[in-house]
């Protein structure tokens, strides 16, 4: 059971990749085969089971696109 849950708001994400870089679990990636209505490749969680809810990604996100929940 994952300790944390990370949700991305696709309409706010600009695919900058700063969250990918700071995730200690290395479970965030950029969806290269998908384009949002704004024309960006958005970030997503590759393995939600490993999320600890540390919120590093959300703290780093310049577009406030990430919501983090934790047990």
């Amino acid at each position: 059971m994952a300790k944390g849950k990370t949700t991305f708001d696709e309409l706010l994400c600009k695919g900058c990749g700063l969250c990918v870089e700071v995730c200690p679990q290395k479970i965030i990636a950029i969806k290269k085969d998908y384009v949002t209505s704004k024309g960006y490749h958005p970030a997503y969680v590759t393995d939600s089971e490993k999320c600890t809810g540390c919120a590093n990604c959300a703290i780093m996100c310049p577009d406030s696109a990430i919501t983090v929940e934790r047990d």
Partner: protein
Amino acid sequence: MSVVYQKSRGLTDVSTHYCPGCTHGIIHKLVAECLVELDILEKSIGVAPVGCAVLAYDYFNCDMQEAAHGRAPAVGTGIKRVQPDKFVFTYQGDGDLASIGSNEIVQVAHRGEKISTIFVNNAIYGMTGGQMAPTTLIGQKTTTCQDGRKEELAGKPIKISEMLATIDGAKYIARVSVDSPAHIRQAKKAIMRAFQTQLEGKGFSLVEVISSCPTNWGKSPVEALNWLRDNMIPYYPLGVYKDWEAE
């Protein structure tokens, strides 16, 4: 599960116009979070600059006023003197504050105006297309110094925090960075402290935030933060340059 991080209500629902990976968004979040946590959002009036953050008035969920280039400290002074019970902050970039507005920022500090300034230093003019700023590093290439800034032509980059810390009316001066989650947490503490300086009526406060400009630096957002860490922080050391409580 409970929510541990979400978009601050100190920001509007508008999606920003900033380039992907621009750290203005991070700094906006920190300011908004501090206004909410200090419970002063409803009595805050922000002053937006000219530069990339010119549209900041659309993003902060409080009253905002746009100022002429570099004149945010004068506008902030007027607002604070007419409405001393309000919380007043200016949000300015390095092209705005350190160049055309350098006299304004020195005078506002000298007068000890009870306003707070967020000074975003990314060592370049962003909105106008990447020209050399007073804060551009020696050797850094911009559209107006294509072989890199030369000291013999343009002098050394101006260190605003060190300069303002020598002024009596300035009561809290700190330089922070937003290149990592740890530095972002420190930056938030500094902004909190600056805002408390105003709330306690001590005098002028300023937080210089070392920031990136991936687009005009010609780097990816991640590369830009690495460059910031390797080049900007050594020249612009982080830390608290003045704190009224320590005096």
